[in-house]
């Protein structure tokens, strides 16, 4: 059983790391702020989410497990809010009114 959970951890953490790779590539290669924002939120939600998911079997129930899930929920909430706020800012031209 332990082996099965370890494999689950490895797969999920690797998948999470892949999304951080994808997020970085997107942030560097995409042409405009809105598409970059899209890449960023994928890394935020899926990257961190999969890493947390993968770490869950390795942590001590209950406090650490709850904390880990809470971290992901905070990141989701923050990502959603900041994503929308930044998209508004980017659409209005990014910089300050000149």
């Amino acid at each position: 059983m332990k082996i099965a959970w370890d494999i689950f951890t490895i797969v999920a953490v690797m998948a999470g790391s892949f999304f951080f790779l994808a997020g970085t590539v997107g942030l560097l290669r995409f042409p405009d702020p809105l598409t970059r924002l899209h890449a960023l939120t994928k890394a935020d939600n899926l990257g961190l989410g999969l890493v947390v998911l993968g770490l869950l079997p390795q942590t001590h129930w209950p406090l650490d497990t709850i904390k880990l899930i809470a971290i992901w929920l905070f990141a989701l909430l923050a990502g959603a809010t900041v994503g929308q706020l930044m998209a508004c800012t980017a659409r209005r031209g990014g910089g300050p009114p000149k």
Partner: protein
Amino acid sequence: MTLALAVDIGLAMLILAMAGWTIAVRDTFASVIGFVTYGLLLTLVWVRLAMPDVALTEAAMGGGLTGALLIGGAARLRRTEAAVRTERPGMLTRTLAAVLSATVTAALAICVLNLPDPAPTLAPDAAAKLGSTGVGNPVTAVLLAYRSMDTLLEAIVVLLALFGVWSLAHDRFWGGCPQLRTHADSEGILAYFARILPPIGIIVGVYIFWIGADFPGGKFQGATILAAMWLLVIGAGLAYFPPISQAWLRILLVAGPLVFMVIGFAGIVTAGAVFAYPIGFAKPLILAIEIALMPTLVLALALLVAGAPQRMPPQ
């Protein structure tokens, strides 16, 4: 351990690059964003140095409050940017500054390389007396038992800084309310966020405060989180700062250091020395000081970010 060392080297290079860029970039706003990231890197360094207490403080202070403070300042000073840039000092000044800085760095580096071996440490002493304080976290024991005078003076310094900030208010706003720049839209995403996050954030803040007795954490870290939550609610336009003339505000601000001092000086009678705790009462007294200091720190830290009063309360 080679992987760990590789991580350390990478982290050190990254932090130097970030600091260098923060200094070199032309735009102040960009520099502030760099500084926020720099704070996060410092948190990672503290974790690598096995000091979770300091990492927690840096995580809460560096990224959160200091970031908000500097971003607010940079936004208001944006118009002055172009005018100030013309004041850039000449080549000679810059060269001399570079030479001076390099000398300081070299001297410090020599000191670091010649640190005494074995390193002097107070850790065994701190561990030996830990049982008598009733506290499990040695850092908390230092803050509130062995070196509690420092902690008291620190709380007073925070208050003095706050009074300094308040005294910068225009005469006509004295006793008024500080103000953050707020989003006027009370139905927007930010208002939604500021309704959901603070209840959970308060639980986390109190949790960090509470576990401080035995594990990394404590009142400074907890207070910073609570202050950030309060600022978030105000920043979203859901609440306003109270006028600084309010009696309850002033009482809470002074209560922490006052309780600390009363308990400290009571030590002369009960335990024979200033800031000594009578045997068996150390833990409850430490707890009393922490609980009294908590509101003081939350209010003071948040109001420091808010700055000087900028308007009178509505009638």
